[in-house]
């Protein structure tokens, strides 16, 4: 029992900075969701049930455009596919002495940040470590959305305009630093952006909805990169 408690508290310690960061980003999600026409309750429900940044932001444009459920499902699948890699990695590191049912709950809390915290610990992880981090991260993400959605109805336009770029800043902070070490990533990043511009501005291609554009670019660029430059072990995921 004592070790469960220790693991839980350890997870909560990692969860404090994660929850604060989540609050800030999900605040802007809540704000944009309300701007997109969702209610405060619907925006909050999305955050509580999805617990993911990129996927949720991408879903807004599909929902407002009245996109199909297939488009939404494929889009979320591709954007969140990175969690599969993390999930594989978590399964290697999870202490097998705990009952199987824990995996159902641990899975819900696999995010970039919680994965990062658990992967950087030495040795096997208790599911209770994950629960400790989730106990703060999930409320941080959900309450941030609630507050942002409520504030989104009263914030002035100039503040909303400024806050709406926060998520893109986060994305750039994730993808640019590793490219300084692995220069091939510059090519991957710049090709994806260049294709994004082509799909946005070239007549004909700009008819394709943004949800599908992300799928097409991600699959195309990653597949080409994997063929041109298969990863060696030392490039691999930092775990």
């Amino acid at each position, binding site marked *: 029992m004592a070790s469960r408690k220790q693991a839980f508290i350890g997870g909560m310690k990692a969860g404090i900075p994660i929850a*604060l960061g989540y609050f800030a*980003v999900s605040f802007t999600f809540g704000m944009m969701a309300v701007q997109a026409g969702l209610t405060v309750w619907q925006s909050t429900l999305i955050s509580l*049930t999805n*617990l993911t940044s*990129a*996927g*949720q932001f991408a*879903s807004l444009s599909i*929902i407002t455009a009245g996109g*199909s*459920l297939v488009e*939404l*499902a494929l889009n*979320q699948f591709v*954007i*969140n*596919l*990175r*969690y*599969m*890699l993390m*999930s594989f990695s978590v*399964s290697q590191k999870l202490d097998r002495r705990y009952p199987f049912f824990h*995996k*159902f709950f*641990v*899975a819900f809390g*696999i995010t970039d940040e919680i994965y990062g915290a658990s992967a950087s610990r030495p040795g096997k992880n208790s599911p209770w470590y994950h629960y400790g981090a989730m106990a703060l991260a999930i409320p941080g993400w959900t309450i941030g959305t609630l507050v942002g959605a409520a504030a989104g109805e009263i914030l002035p*336009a*100039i503040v909303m*305009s*400024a806050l709406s*770029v*926060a998520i*893109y*800043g986060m*994305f*750039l*902070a*994730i*993808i*640019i*630093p*590793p490219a300084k070490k692995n220069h091939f990533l510059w090519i*991957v*990043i710049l090709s*994806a*952006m260049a*294709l*994004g*511009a082509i799909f946005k501005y070239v007549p004909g291609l700009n008819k394709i909805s943004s949800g599908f*554009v992300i799928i097409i*670019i*991600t699959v195309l*660029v*990653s597949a080409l*990169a994997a063929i041109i430059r*298969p990863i060696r072990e030392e*490039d*691999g995921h930092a775990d």
Partner: protein
Amino acid sequence: MQISIYLYILVMAVVTYLVRAVPLLLSRKQITNTFIKSFLFYMPYACLAAMTFPAILGATSYLISGIVGFVAACIAAYLERSMITVALIACAAVFVTEQIIRWVA
């Protein structure tokens, strides 16, 4: 016929959960196929880059402030500031640019 918001939310929640749960529930060994490993390694970079650009240019009230926010975020990210710092620098750059635009106009 309009699709209910709640149906959208249900679909995205289920897909996202399955992506997270299936490998954890089923995996007994590491992925060994080099192509799949490489594909999964490159994917976050391609995906987040495609989501960022050119969408960031249309997120703000003016094209110019979007460009300034994008450049500011790229520089801050290159200098390896934390995620929250980069996000706030991008927001501040957009805010200041739009104040200047309104003041000039």
